[in-house]
Protein backbone atom coordinates (compact mmCIF):
# COMPACT_ATOMS: atom_id res chain seq x y z
CA UNK A 1 0.00 0.00 0.00
CA UNK A 2 0.99 3.62 -0.50
CA UNK A 3 2.05 5.81 2.33
CA UNK A 4 -0.75 7.83 3.84
CA UNK A 5 -0.11 11.50 3.26
CA UNK A 6 -0.82 14.23 5.77
CA UNK A 7 -3.67 15.51 3.63
CA UNK A 8 -5.31 12.13 3.65
CA UNK A 9 -5.06 11.89 7.41
CA UNK A 10 -6.63 15.33 7.87
CA UNK A 11 -9.41 14.36 5.45
CA UNK A 12 -10.02 11.08 7.27
CA UNK A 13 -10.38 12.85 10.61
CA UNK A 14 -12.82 15.38 9.19
CA UNK A 15 -14.69 12.64 7.37
CA UNK A 16 -15.19 10.65 10.57
CA UNK A 17 -16.30 13.77 12.42
CA UNK A 18 -18.82 14.80 9.74
CA UNK A 19 -20.33 11.34 9.40
CA UNK A 20 -20.34 10.88 13.17
CA UNK A 21 -22.24 14.15 13.65
CA UNK A 22 -24.75 13.14 10.95
CA UNK A 23 -25.35 9.78 12.57
CA UNK A 24 -25.72 11.42 15.98
CA UNK A 25 -28.24 13.90 14.56
CA UNK A 26 -30.43 10.95 13.63
CA UNK A 27 -30.28 9.23 16.98
CA UNK A 28 -30.01 12.05 19.55
CA UNK A 29 -33.53 13.49 19.03
CA UNK A 30 -34.94 10.07 19.84
CA UNK A 31 -32.76 9.63 22.92
CA UNK A 32 -33.77 13.13 24.02
CA UNK A 33 -37.41 12.16 23.56
CA UNK A 34 -36.96 9.03 25.64
CA UNK A 35 -35.20 11.01 28.37
CA UNK A 36 -37.99 13.61 28.46
CA UNK A 37 -40.64 10.91 28.68
CA UNK A 38 -38.89 9.43 31.73
CA UNK A 39 -38.51 12.77 33.53
CA UNK A 40 -40.86 14.53 35.88
CA UNK A 41 -43.42 17.00 34.55
CA UNK A 42 -41.73 20.04 36.12
CA UNK A 43 -38.30 19.12 34.81
CA UNK A 44 -39.53 18.48 31.27
CA UNK A 45 -41.78 21.55 31.09
CA UNK A 46 -38.86 23.75 32.16
CA UNK A 47 -36.52 22.34 29.49
CA UNK A 48 -34.14 20.91 32.03
CA UNK A 49 -33.79 17.56 30.31
CA UNK A 50 -30.95 16.77 27.94
CA UNK A 51 -30.12 13.22 27.05
CA UNK A 52 -30.54 11.83 30.55
CA UNK A 53 -33.81 11.80 32.53
CA UNK A 54 -34.12 14.40 35.28
CA UNK A 55 -36.02 13.30 38.40
CA UNK A 56 -36.50 9.88 36.88
CA UNK A 57 -40.03 8.46 37.02
CA UNK A 58 -42.46 6.54 34.86
CA UNK A 59 -45.54 8.66 35.60
CA UNK A 60 -46.12 9.48 31.96
CA UNK A 61 -46.24 5.81 31.02
CA UNK A 62 -48.55 5.08 33.95
CA UNK A 63 -50.82 7.84 32.67
CA UNK A 64 -50.80 6.21 29.22
CA UNK A 65 -51.76 2.83 30.61
CA UNK A 66 -54.65 4.38 32.55
CA UNK A 67 -55.93 6.48 29.67
CA UNK A 68 -58.41 4.57 27.52
CA UNK A 69 -58.20 6.85 24.47
CA UNK A 70 -54.58 6.15 23.76
CA UNK A 71 -55.05 2.39 23.91
CA UNK A 72 -58.12 2.42 21.75
CA UNK A 73 -56.20 4.42 19.13
CA UNK A 74 -53.32 1.99 19.42
CA UNK A 75 -55.71 -0.92 18.86
CA UNK A 76 -57.24 0.73 15.78
CA UNK A 77 -53.77 1.27 14.37
CA UNK A 78 -52.80 -2.36 14.94
CA UNK A 79 -56.06 -3.50 13.33
CA UNK A 80 -55.77 -1.28 10.26
CA UNK A 81 -52.10 -2.21 9.85
CA UNK A 82 -52.71 -5.97 9.97
CA UNK A 83 -55.84 -5.87 7.82
CA UNK A 84 -54.41 -3.36 5.37
CA UNK A 85 -51.09 -5.16 4.99
CA UNK A 86 -52.80 -8.51 4.42
CA UNK A 87 -55.07 -7.08 1.72
CA UNK A 88 -52.14 -5.25 0.14
CA UNK A 89 -49.99 -8.36 -0.16
CA UNK A 90 -52.71 -10.48 -1.75
CA UNK A 91 -53.60 -7.80 -4.30
CA UNK A 92 -49.97 -6.93 -5.05
CA UNK A 93 -49.19 -10.56 -5.87
CA UNK A 94 -52.35 -11.03 -7.94
CA UNK A 95 -51.51 -7.99 -10.05
CA UNK A 96 -47.73 -8.38 -10.23
CA UNK A 97 -47.81 -11.96 -11.50
CA UNK A 98 -49.73 -11.32 -14.74
CA UNK A 99 -47.80 -8.09 -15.32
CA UNK A 100 -44.51 -9.96 -15.07
CA UNK A 101 -45.39 -11.72 -18.33
CA UNK A 102 -44.58 -9.90 -21.57
CA UNK A 103 -47.29 -8.66 -23.89
CA UNK A 104 -47.03 -11.67 -26.22
CA UNK A 105 -47.97 -13.99 -23.41
CA UNK A 106 -50.30 -11.63 -21.54
CA UNK A 107 -52.40 -10.08 -24.30
CA UNK A 108 -53.64 -6.66 -23.25
CA UNK A 109 -50.77 -5.91 -20.91
CA UNK A 110 -50.29 -2.40 -22.40
CA UNK A 111 -53.88 -1.56 -21.43
CA UNK A 112 -53.21 -2.55 -17.81
CA UNK A 113 -49.97 -0.56 -17.82
CA UNK A 114 -51.74 2.51 -19.22
CA UNK A 115 -54.39 2.28 -16.49
CA UNK A 116 -51.72 2.00 -13.78
CA UNK A 117 -49.48 4.74 -15.17
CA UNK A 118 -52.37 7.17 -15.32
CA UNK A 119 -53.19 6.86 -11.63
CA UNK A 120 -49.51 7.34 -10.80
CA UNK A 121 -49.64 10.82 -12.36
CA UNK A 122 -53.19 11.86 -11.69
CA UNK A 123 -55.66 11.39 -8.88
CA UNK A 124 -59.15 12.54 -8.01
CA UNK A 125 -57.90 15.04 -5.46
CA UNK A 126 -58.80 15.51 -1.84
CA UNK A 127 -62.33 16.89 -2.04
CA UNK A 128 -63.81 14.49 -4.63
CA UNK A 129 -62.21 11.59 -2.79
CA UNK A 130 -63.49 12.79 0.57
CA UNK A 131 -67.05 13.04 -0.80
CA UNK A 132 -66.71 9.68 -2.54
CA UNK A 133 -65.70 7.86 0.66
CA UNK A 134 -68.61 9.61 2.35
CA UNK A 135 -71.01 8.45 -0.40
CA UNK A 136 -69.79 4.88 -0.02
CA UNK A 137 -70.67 5.10 3.67
CA UNK A 138 -67.14 4.20 4.76
CA UNK A 139 -66.74 7.06 7.24
CA UNK A 140 -65.71 5.99 10.74
CA UNK A 141 -64.92 2.46 9.58
CA UNK A 142 -61.56 0.78 9.17
CA UNK A 143 -62.33 0.26 5.47
CA UNK A 144 -61.85 3.95 4.75
CA UNK A 145 -58.25 3.55 5.92
CA UNK A 146 -57.60 0.25 4.16
CA UNK A 147 -59.39 0.23 0.80
CA UNK A 148 -58.23 3.49 -0.85
CA UNK A 149 -54.62 2.28 -0.80
CA UNK A 150 -55.35 -1.42 -1.28
CA UNK A 151 -53.20 -1.72 -4.46
CA UNK A 152 -49.94 0.18 -3.87
CA UNK A 153 -48.53 0.61 -7.39
CA UNK A 154 -44.95 1.10 -6.28
CA UNK A 155 -44.95 -2.29 -4.52
CA UNK A 156 -46.56 -3.90 -7.56
CA UNK A 157 -43.65 -2.65 -9.70
CA UNK A 158 -41.15 -3.94 -7.14
CA UNK A 159 -42.77 -7.37 -7.05
CA UNK A 160 -43.18 -7.48 -10.83
CA UNK A 161 -39.50 -6.70 -11.38
CA UNK A 162 -38.56 -9.48 -9.00
CA UNK A 163 -40.82 -12.01 -10.72
CA UNK A 164 -39.42 -10.99 -14.09
CA UNK A 165 -35.89 -11.72 -12.96
CA UNK A 166 -36.79 -15.38 -12.30
CA UNK A 167 -35.73 -17.86 -15.02
CA UNK A 168 -38.59 -18.69 -17.37
CA UNK A 169 -37.69 -22.40 -17.38
CA UNK A 170 -39.02 -22.72 -13.82
CA UNK A 171 -42.62 -22.47 -14.94
CA UNK A 172 -42.24 -24.22 -18.26
CA UNK A 173 -41.74 -27.68 -16.75
CA UNK A 174 -44.97 -27.32 -14.77
CA UNK A 175 -46.84 -26.00 -17.81
CA UNK A 176 -45.80 -29.05 -19.82
CA UNK A 177 -47.41 -31.15 -17.09
CA UNK A 178 -50.63 -29.24 -17.67
CA UNK A 179 -50.57 -26.83 -14.74
CA UNK A 180 -52.47 -23.57 -15.31
CA UNK A 181 -51.19 -20.08 -14.48
CA UNK A 182 -52.87 -20.11 -11.07
CA UNK A 183 -51.12 -23.29 -9.98
CA UNK A 184 -47.82 -22.05 -11.38
CA UNK A 185 -48.15 -18.84 -9.43
CA UNK A 186 -49.08 -20.52 -6.14
CA UNK A 187 -46.73 -23.47 -6.11
CA UNK A 188 -43.75 -22.34 -8.17
CA UNK A 189 -43.40 -18.56 -8.29
CA UNK A 190 -44.59 -17.58 -4.81
CA UNK A 191 -42.17 -19.77 -2.83
CA UNK A 192 -39.16 -18.18 -4.53
CA UNK A 193 -40.64 -14.67 -4.16
CA UNK A 194 -40.48 -14.76 -0.36
CA UNK A 195 -37.70 -12.13 -0.01
CA UNK A 196 -39.61 -9.76 -2.23
CA UNK A 197 -42.86 -10.49 -0.36
CA UNK A 198 -41.01 -9.61 2.84
CA UNK A 199 -39.99 -6.29 1.30
CA UNK A 200 -43.48 -5.27 0.24
CA UNK A 201 -44.93 -6.50 3.55
CA UNK A 202 -42.60 -4.21 5.44
CA UNK A 203 -43.36 -1.37 3.07
CA UNK A 204 -47.09 -1.82 3.66
CA UNK A 205 -46.59 -2.18 7.39
CA UNK A 206 -44.63 1.05 7.60
CA UNK A 207 -47.05 2.94 5.35
CA UNK A 208 -50.13 1.82 7.27
CA UNK A 209 -48.62 2.37 10.68
CA UNK A 210 -47.36 5.82 9.70
CA UNK A 211 -50.33 7.24 7.84
CA UNK A 212 -52.41 9.74 9.75
CA UNK A 213 -54.00 12.08 7.23
CA UNK A 214 -56.59 9.54 6.05
CA UNK A 215 -57.56 8.97 9.68
CA UNK A 216 -58.10 12.69 10.08
CA UNK A 217 -60.17 13.00 6.89
CA UNK A 218 -62.37 9.94 7.04
CA UNK A 219 -63.35 9.92 10.70
CA UNK A 220 -65.95 12.20 12.22
CA UNK A 221 -65.56 10.68 15.67
CA UNK A 222 -62.27 11.07 17.51
CA UNK A 223 -62.87 7.67 19.09
CA UNK A 224 -62.13 6.11 15.70
CA UNK A 225 -58.78 7.85 15.16
CA UNK A 226 -55.80 5.58 14.57
CA UNK A 227 -52.78 6.24 16.77
CA UNK A 228 -50.82 8.53 14.44
CA UNK A 229 -53.86 10.72 13.83
CA UNK A 230 -54.58 10.88 17.54
CA UNK A 231 -50.93 11.80 18.15
CA UNK A 232 -50.98 14.49 15.49
CA UNK A 233 -54.11 15.99 17.03
CA UNK A 234 -52.78 16.13 20.58
CA UNK A 235 -49.44 17.53 19.38
CA UNK A 236 -50.74 20.24 17.08
CA UNK A 237 -54.40 20.56 18.01
CA UNK A 238 -55.50 20.65 14.37
CA UNK A 239 -58.69 18.72 13.97
CA UNK A 240 -61.79 19.65 12.00
CA UNK A 241 -63.85 18.88 15.07
CA UNK A 242 -63.07 20.21 18.51
CA UNK A 243 -61.46 17.91 21.00
CA UNK A 244 -61.27 17.52 24.72
CA UNK A 245 -58.89 20.17 26.09
CA UNK A 246 -57.58 17.82 28.77
CA UNK A 247 -56.14 15.64 26.02
CA UNK A 248 -54.01 18.50 24.68
CA UNK A 249 -53.00 20.29 27.86
CA UNK A 250 -50.64 17.67 29.17
CA UNK A 251 -47.02 17.88 30.17
CA UNK A 252 -44.12 17.57 27.75
CA UNK A 253 -43.15 14.28 29.35
CA UNK A 254 -46.63 12.85 28.61
CA UNK A 255 -46.43 13.96 24.99
CA UNK A 256 -42.94 12.53 24.67
CA UNK A 257 -44.14 9.21 26.08
CA UNK A 258 -46.96 9.05 23.54
CA UNK A 259 -44.61 9.87 20.66
CA UNK A 260 -42.19 7.22 21.84
CA UNK A 261 -44.83 4.50 22.17
CA UNK A 262 -46.13 5.42 18.70
CA UNK A 263 -42.75 4.78 17.14
CA UNK A 264 -42.01 1.61 19.15
CA UNK A 265 -43.47 -0.83 16.57
CA UNK A 266 -41.23 0.71 13.92
CA UNK A 267 -38.17 0.42 16.13
CA UNK A 268 -39.19 -3.21 16.68
CA UNK A 269 -39.18 -4.03 12.96
CA UNK A 270 -36.11 -1.90 12.24
CA UNK A 271 -33.72 -4.89 12.10
CA UNK A 272 -35.99 -6.52 9.51
CA UNK A 273 -36.25 -3.27 7.61
CA UNK A 274 -32.51 -3.31 7.39
CA UNK A 275 -32.46 -6.84 6.05
CA UNK A 276 -35.35 -6.89 3.57
CA UNK A 277 -36.58 -3.38 3.00
CA UNK A 278 -33.31 -1.72 2.21
CA UNK A 279 -31.95 -4.46 -0.05
CA UNK A 280 -35.31 -4.81 -1.78
CA UNK A 281 -35.68 -1.08 -2.25
CA UNK A 282 -32.12 -0.69 -3.46
CA UNK A 283 -32.67 -3.41 -6.04
CA UNK A 284 -35.93 -1.77 -7.02
CA UNK A 285 -34.43 1.66 -7.46
CA UNK A 286 -31.17 0.61 -9.10
CA UNK A 287 -32.91 -1.61 -11.60
CA UNK A 288 -35.46 1.12 -12.17
Amino acid at each position, binding site marked *: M*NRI*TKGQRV*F*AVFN*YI*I*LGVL*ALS*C*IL*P*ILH*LLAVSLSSKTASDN*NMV*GLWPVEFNVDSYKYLIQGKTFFRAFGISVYRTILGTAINIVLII*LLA*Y*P*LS*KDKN*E*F*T*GRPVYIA*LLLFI*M*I*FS*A*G*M*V*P*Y*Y*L*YINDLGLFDTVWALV*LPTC*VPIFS*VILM*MNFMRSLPKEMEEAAKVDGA*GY*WNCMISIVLPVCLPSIATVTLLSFVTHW*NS*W*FDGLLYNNDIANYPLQTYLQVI*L*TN*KAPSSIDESMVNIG*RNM*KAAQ*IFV*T*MLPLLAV*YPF*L*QKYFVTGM*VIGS*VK*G
Partner: protein
Amino acid sequence: MKEEICEREVTCVQKAPPQGIGGWLRRVGRGLKRSYQLHLIALVPMIMIIVFAYVPMGGIILAWKKYIATKGIYGSPWVGWENFENMFNLPMFWPAFWNTFKIAVLKILFGFPFPIIVALLLNEVRCLAFKKSVQTIIYLPYFLSWAVLGGIMLDIFSANGAVNSLLNAVGLPSVKWLENGTSFVSMLIMTDVWKNFGYNTIVFLAALTGVDKNLYEAAEVDGANRWKQTIHITLPAILPMIILMGVLNLGSILNAGFEQIFIMINNLVREDSEIIDTLVYDITFGSRQYGIATALGLFKSVISGAFIVTGWFLAHKFSDYRVF
Protein backbone atom coordinates in the same frame (compact mmCIF):
# COMPACT_ATOMS: atom_id res chain seq x y z
CA MET B 1 -24.26 -17.45 -39.47
CA LYS B 2 -25.61 -15.57 -42.45
CA GLU B 3 -27.62 -18.58 -43.63
CA GLU B 4 -29.23 -18.95 -40.23
CA ILE B 5 -30.50 -15.41 -40.33
CA CYS B 6 -31.88 -15.99 -43.80
CA GLU B 7 -33.68 -19.11 -42.67
CA ARG B 8 -35.24 -17.30 -39.75
CA GLU B 9 -36.43 -14.54 -42.03
CA VAL B 10 -38.06 -17.09 -44.30
CA THR B 11 -39.97 -18.70 -41.47
CA CYS B 12 -41.02 -15.27 -40.28
CA VAL B 13 -42.41 -14.42 -43.65
CA GLN B 14 -44.28 -17.70 -43.81
CA LYS B 15 -45.89 -17.13 -40.43
CA ALA B 16 -46.59 -13.49 -41.17
CA PRO B 17 -49.66 -12.42 -39.20
CA PRO B 18 -52.79 -11.44 -41.11
CA GLN B 19 -52.93 -7.72 -41.86
CA GLY B 20 -55.57 -5.09 -41.21
CA ILE B 21 -58.04 -4.51 -38.40
CA GLY B 22 -59.68 -7.90 -38.91
CA GLY B 23 -56.35 -9.66 -38.55
CA TRP B 24 -55.52 -7.62 -35.48
CA LEU B 25 -58.84 -8.49 -33.87
CA ARG B 26 -58.33 -12.18 -34.60
CA ARG B 27 -54.84 -12.06 -33.08
CA VAL B 28 -56.09 -10.27 -29.98
CA GLY B 29 -58.96 -12.74 -29.69
CA ARG B 30 -56.60 -15.68 -29.87
CA GLY B 31 -54.26 -14.00 -27.40
CA LEU B 32 -57.05 -13.33 -24.92
CA LYS B 33 -58.24 -16.90 -25.16
CA ARG B 34 -54.74 -18.13 -24.44
CA SER B 35 -54.17 -15.74 -21.54
CA TYR B 36 -57.63 -15.59 -19.98
CA GLN B 37 -56.30 -17.14 -16.77
CA LEU B 38 -53.90 -14.23 -16.32
CA HIS B 39 -56.76 -11.76 -16.75
CA LEU B 40 -58.79 -13.64 -14.14
CA ILE B 41 -55.88 -13.45 -11.70
CA ALA B 42 -55.60 -9.68 -12.21
CA LEU B 43 -59.36 -9.17 -12.01
CA VAL B 44 -59.78 -8.37 -8.31
CA PRO B 45 -56.90 -5.85 -8.06
CA MET B 46 -58.03 -4.17 -11.28
CA ILE B 47 -61.61 -3.87 -9.99
CA MET B 48 -60.26 -2.28 -6.80
CA ILE B 49 -58.21 0.18 -8.89
CA ILE B 50 -61.24 1.09 -10.99
CA VAL B 51 -63.46 1.50 -7.94
CA PHE B 52 -61.00 3.35 -5.72
CA ALA B 53 -58.99 5.37 -8.23
CA TYR B 54 -60.99 5.85 -11.41
CA VAL B 55 -64.59 6.18 -10.23
CA PRO B 56 -63.76 8.95 -7.70
CA MET B 57 -62.19 10.94 -10.56
CA GLY B 58 -65.73 11.59 -11.76
CA GLY B 59 -66.01 13.94 -8.79
CA ILE B 60 -63.57 16.31 -10.50
CA ILE B 61 -66.57 17.83 -12.30
CA LEU B 62 -67.18 19.53 -8.97
CA ALA B 63 -64.61 22.08 -10.15
CA TRP B 64 -67.29 23.40 -12.55
CA LYS B 65 -70.19 23.07 -10.10
CA LYS B 66 -71.56 24.68 -6.98
CA TYR B 67 -71.70 21.91 -4.40
CA ILE B 68 -75.00 21.49 -2.60
CA ALA B 69 -74.76 18.76 0.01
CA THR B 70 -78.33 17.55 -0.35
CA LYS B 71 -78.01 17.14 -4.12
CA GLY B 72 -74.63 15.40 -4.15
CA ILE B 73 -71.84 15.93 -6.69
CA TYR B 74 -73.81 14.88 -9.74
CA GLY B 75 -77.03 16.72 -8.88
CA SER B 76 -75.40 20.05 -8.01
CA PRO B 77 -75.81 22.90 -10.53
CA TRP B 78 -73.12 23.81 -13.08
CA VAL B 79 -71.45 27.20 -12.69
CA GLY B 80 -68.99 27.25 -15.61
CA TRP B 81 -65.52 28.59 -14.82
CA GLU B 82 -66.64 30.56 -11.77
CA ASN B 83 -64.72 28.36 -9.32
CA PHE B 84 -61.50 28.86 -11.25
CA GLU B 85 -62.02 32.62 -11.38
CA ASN B 86 -62.62 32.71 -7.64
CA MET B 87 -59.59 30.51 -7.13
CA PHE B 88 -57.26 32.93 -8.93
CA ASN B 89 -58.77 35.78 -6.93
CA LEU B 90 -58.09 34.15 -3.56
CA PRO B 91 -55.71 36.46 -1.65
CA MET B 92 -53.59 33.44 -0.71
CA PHE B 93 -53.52 31.87 -4.19
CA TRP B 94 -50.35 33.38 -5.65
CA PRO B 95 -48.42 33.38 -2.35
CA ALA B 96 -49.33 29.69 -1.91
CA PHE B 97 -48.34 28.90 -5.49
CA TRP B 98 -44.91 30.53 -5.18
CA ASN B 99 -44.35 29.06 -1.72
CA THR B 100 -45.07 25.60 -3.10
CA PHE B 101 -42.63 26.11 -5.91
CA LYS B 102 -39.99 27.74 -3.70
CA ILE B 103 -40.09 25.13 -0.94
CA ALA B 104 -40.18 22.19 -3.35
CA VAL B 105 -37.26 23.50 -5.41
CA LEU B 106 -35.18 24.27 -2.33
CA LYS B 107 -35.84 20.78 -1.00
CA ILE B 108 -34.62 19.26 -4.27
CA LEU B 109 -31.65 21.64 -4.48
CA PHE B 110 -30.38 20.63 -1.03
CA GLY B 111 -31.90 17.19 -0.69
CA PHE B 112 -30.60 15.80 -3.98
CA PRO B 113 -26.83 16.42 -3.79
CA PHE B 114 -26.56 15.87 -0.05
CA PRO B 115 -26.97 12.05 -0.06
CA ILE B 116 -24.50 11.80 -2.96
CA ILE B 117 -21.90 13.65 -0.92
CA VAL B 118 -22.61 11.52 2.16
CA ALA B 119 -22.36 8.34 0.07
CA LEU B 120 -19.00 9.49 -1.33
CA LEU B 121 -17.75 10.29 2.18
CA LEU B 122 -18.98 6.94 3.53
CA ASN B 123 -17.23 5.23 0.65
CA GLU B 124 -13.91 6.64 1.87
CA VAL B 125 -14.31 5.21 5.36
CA ARG B 126 -11.88 2.35 5.98
CA CYS B 127 -13.16 1.25 9.38
CA LEU B 128 -15.95 -1.19 8.48
CA ALA B 129 -17.63 -1.18 11.90
CA PHE B 130 -17.96 2.62 11.77
CA LYS B 131 -19.26 2.53 8.21
CA LYS B 132 -21.83 -0.12 9.06
CA SER B 133 -23.11 1.69 12.16
CA VAL B 134 -23.45 5.00 10.33
CA GLN B 135 -25.31 3.26 7.51
CA THR B 136 -27.66 1.61 9.98
CA ILE B 137 -28.46 4.77 11.90
CA ILE B 138 -28.91 7.40 9.20
CA TYR B 139 -32.05 6.04 7.60
CA LEU B 140 -33.99 5.70 10.86
CA PRO B 141 -35.79 9.08 10.36
CA TYR B 142 -36.88 7.98 6.89
CA PHE B 143 -39.19 5.40 8.45
CA LEU B 144 -40.78 7.70 10.99
CA SER B 145 -43.98 9.55 10.16
CA TRP B 146 -44.28 13.32 10.10
CA ALA B 147 -46.80 12.98 12.92
CA VAL B 148 -44.00 11.61 15.10
CA LEU B 149 -41.17 13.72 13.68
CA GLY B 150 -43.33 16.84 13.59
CA GLY B 151 -43.96 16.40 17.31
CA ILE B 152 -40.25 16.03 17.97
CA MET B 153 -39.29 18.94 15.71
CA LEU B 154 -41.86 21.35 17.14
CA ASP B 155 -40.32 20.57 20.50
CA ILE B 156 -36.62 20.85 19.70
CA PHE B 157 -37.01 23.90 17.44
CA SER B 158 -39.17 25.76 19.97
CA ALA B 159 -37.96 29.08 21.44
CA ASN B 160 -35.95 27.46 24.23
CA GLY B 161 -35.70 23.99 22.72
CA ALA B 162 -32.66 21.83 22.11
CA VAL B 163 -31.52 23.50 18.87
CA ASN B 164 -31.44 26.99 20.33
CA SER B 165 -29.68 25.67 23.44
CA LEU B 166 -27.01 24.20 21.14
CA LEU B 167 -26.69 27.48 19.23
CA ASN B 168 -26.33 29.38 22.51
CA ALA B 169 -23.75 26.88 23.72
CA VAL B 170 -21.47 27.72 20.78
CA GLY B 171 -22.07 31.44 21.25
CA LEU B 172 -24.70 32.03 18.57
CA PRO B 173 -27.96 33.88 19.20
CA SER B 174 -31.28 32.01 19.37
CA VAL B 175 -33.37 31.80 16.21
CA LYS B 176 -37.16 32.10 16.17
CA TRP B 177 -37.61 28.95 14.10
CA LEU B 178 -41.36 28.71 14.53
CA GLU B 179 -42.20 32.42 14.41
CA ASN B 180 -40.08 33.98 11.69
CA GLY B 181 -41.11 33.04 8.12
CA THR B 182 -37.62 32.69 6.62
CA SER B 183 -36.28 30.72 9.58
CA PHE B 184 -39.35 28.50 9.48
CA VAL B 185 -38.86 27.70 5.79
CA SER B 186 -35.18 26.93 6.32
CA MET B 187 -36.20 24.68 9.21
CA LEU B 188 -38.67 22.88 6.93
CA ILE B 189 -35.94 22.28 4.36
CA MET B 190 -33.36 21.17 6.91
CA THR B 191 -35.68 18.68 8.58
CA ASP B 192 -36.89 17.32 5.24
CA VAL B 193 -33.34 16.80 3.97
CA TRP B 194 -32.46 15.24 7.32
CA LYS B 195 -35.43 12.84 7.17
CA ASN B 196 -34.70 11.56 3.67
CA PHE B 197 -30.93 11.71 3.15
CA GLY B 198 -30.22 8.38 4.85
CA TYR B 199 -32.33 6.30 2.54
CA ASN B 200 -31.00 7.98 -0.60
CA THR B 201 -27.45 7.61 0.68
CA ILE B 202 -27.97 3.85 0.89
CA VAL B 203 -29.21 3.79 -2.72
CA PHE B 204 -26.19 5.73 -4.01
CA LEU B 205 -23.85 3.67 -1.86
CA ALA B 206 -25.20 0.54 -3.55
CA ALA B 207 -24.34 2.11 -6.91
CA LEU B 208 -20.84 2.95 -5.64
CA THR B 209 -20.06 -0.63 -4.67
CA GLY B 210 -20.70 -1.59 -8.29
CA VAL B 211 -17.76 0.48 -9.55
CA ASP B 212 -14.96 -1.65 -10.97
CA LYS B 213 -12.11 -1.89 -8.41
CA ASN B 214 -9.52 -2.35 -11.15
CA LEU B 215 -10.07 1.21 -12.28
CA TYR B 216 -8.88 2.53 -8.91
CA GLU B 217 -5.79 0.33 -8.95
CA ALA B 218 -4.93 1.51 -12.45
CA ALA B 219 -5.43 5.12 -11.40
CA GLU B 220 -3.22 4.63 -8.34
CA VAL B 221 -0.43 3.28 -10.55
CA ASP B 222 -0.79 6.42 -12.65
CA GLY B 223 -0.37 8.48 -9.49
CA ALA B 224 -3.90 9.77 -9.04
CA ASN B 225 -4.77 10.61 -5.45
CA ARG B 226 -8.11 9.81 -3.79
CA TRP B 227 -9.60 13.18 -4.74
CA LYS B 228 -8.68 12.72 -8.41
CA GLN B 229 -9.97 9.15 -8.30
CA THR B 230 -13.29 10.40 -6.97
CA ILE B 231 -13.55 13.07 -9.67
CA HIS B 232 -12.41 10.93 -12.58
CA ILE B 233 -13.64 7.44 -11.70
CA THR B 234 -16.31 7.34 -9.02
CA LEU B 235 -18.41 10.28 -10.20
CA PRO B 236 -18.45 9.32 -13.89
CA ALA B 237 -19.31 5.75 -12.89
CA ILE B 238 -22.41 6.76 -10.94
CA LEU B 239 -23.27 9.68 -13.23
CA PRO B 240 -26.02 7.79 -15.11
CA MET B 241 -27.68 7.02 -11.79
CA ILE B 242 -27.31 10.65 -10.64
CA ILE B 243 -28.87 11.89 -13.88
CA LEU B 244 -31.71 9.38 -13.58
CA MET B 245 -32.54 10.31 -9.99
CA GLY B 246 -32.17 14.00 -10.80
CA VAL B 247 -34.49 13.84 -13.77
CA LEU B 248 -37.09 11.85 -11.83
CA ASN B 249 -36.99 14.59 -9.17
CA LEU B 250 -38.70 16.81 -11.72
CA GLY B 251 -41.92 15.03 -10.79
CA SER B 252 -41.86 16.51 -7.30
CA ILE B 253 -41.36 20.12 -8.35
CA LEU B 254 -44.74 21.08 -6.89
CA ASN B 255 -44.46 18.59 -4.08
CA ALA B 256 -43.54 20.79 -1.14
CA GLY B 257 -44.43 18.14 1.45
CA PHE B 258 -48.01 18.49 2.64
CA GLU B 259 -47.75 16.29 5.72
CA GLN B 260 -44.72 18.09 7.10
CA ILE B 261 -46.05 21.59 6.54
CA PHE B 262 -49.59 20.76 7.69
CA ILE B 263 -48.24 19.58 11.02
CA MET B 264 -45.67 22.33 11.61
CA ILE B 265 -47.36 25.43 10.18
CA ASN B 266 -48.82 28.11 12.44
CA ASN B 267 -50.43 31.48 11.78
CA LEU B 268 -47.24 33.47 12.38
CA VAL B 269 -45.52 31.85 9.41
CA ARG B 270 -48.52 31.17 7.21
CA GLU B 271 -47.64 33.83 4.64
CA ASP B 272 -44.27 32.25 3.92
CA SER B 273 -45.19 28.61 4.13
CA GLU B 274 -48.81 28.13 3.11
CA ILE B 275 -48.67 25.80 0.09
CA ILE B 276 -51.33 24.79 -2.42
CA ASP B 277 -52.12 21.55 -0.57
CA THR B 278 -52.60 23.22 2.81
CA LEU B 279 -54.66 25.92 1.11
CA VAL B 280 -56.92 23.23 -0.37
CA TYR B 281 -57.40 21.80 3.11
CA ASP B 282 -58.14 25.21 4.61
CA ILE B 283 -60.68 26.06 1.91
CA THR B 284 -62.33 22.66 2.26
CA PHE B 285 -62.68 22.53 6.02
CA GLY B 286 -62.45 26.21 6.85
CA SER B 287 -64.93 27.88 4.51
CA ARG B 288 -66.39 24.66 3.06
CA GLN B 289 -66.05 25.95 -0.53
CA TYR B 290 -65.80 22.50 -2.09
CA GLY B 291 -65.96 23.76 -5.68
CA ILE B 292 -63.00 26.12 -5.32
CA ALA B 293 -61.02 23.51 -3.38
CA THR B 294 -61.60 20.95 -6.14
CA ALA B 295 -60.57 23.47 -8.80
CA LEU B 296 -57.40 24.31 -6.88
CA GLY B 297 -56.54 20.64 -6.36
CA LEU B 298 -57.12 19.96 -10.05
CA PHE B 299 -54.97 22.94 -11.04
CA LYS B 300 -52.05 21.59 -9.02
CA SER B 301 -52.54 18.02 -10.05
CA VAL B 302 -52.52 18.85 -13.77
CA ILE B 303 -49.32 20.88 -13.53
CA SER B 304 -47.49 18.34 -11.41
CA GLY B 305 -48.77 15.52 -13.65
CA ALA B 306 -47.15 17.28 -16.60
CA PHE B 307 -43.87 17.50 -14.67
CA ILE B 308 -43.99 13.82 -13.71
CA VAL B 309 -44.51 12.80 -17.33
CA THR B 310 -41.70 15.10 -18.46
CA GLY B 311 -39.44 13.50 -15.87
CA TRP B 312 -40.33 10.00 -17.06
CA PHE B 313 -39.83 11.04 -20.68
CA LEU B 314 -36.37 12.52 -20.03
CA ALA B 315 -35.41 9.53 -17.88
CA HIS B 316 -36.40 7.22 -20.70
CA LYS B 317 -34.47 9.27 -23.21
CA PHE B 318 -31.27 9.63 -21.19
CA SER B 319 -31.07 6.34 -19.36
CA ASP B 320 -33.63 4.02 -20.89
CA TYR B 321 -35.71 4.13 -17.72
CA ARG B 322 -39.10 2.47 -17.79
CA VAL B 323 -41.62 2.75 -15.00
CA PHE B 324 -42.96 -0.74 -15.70
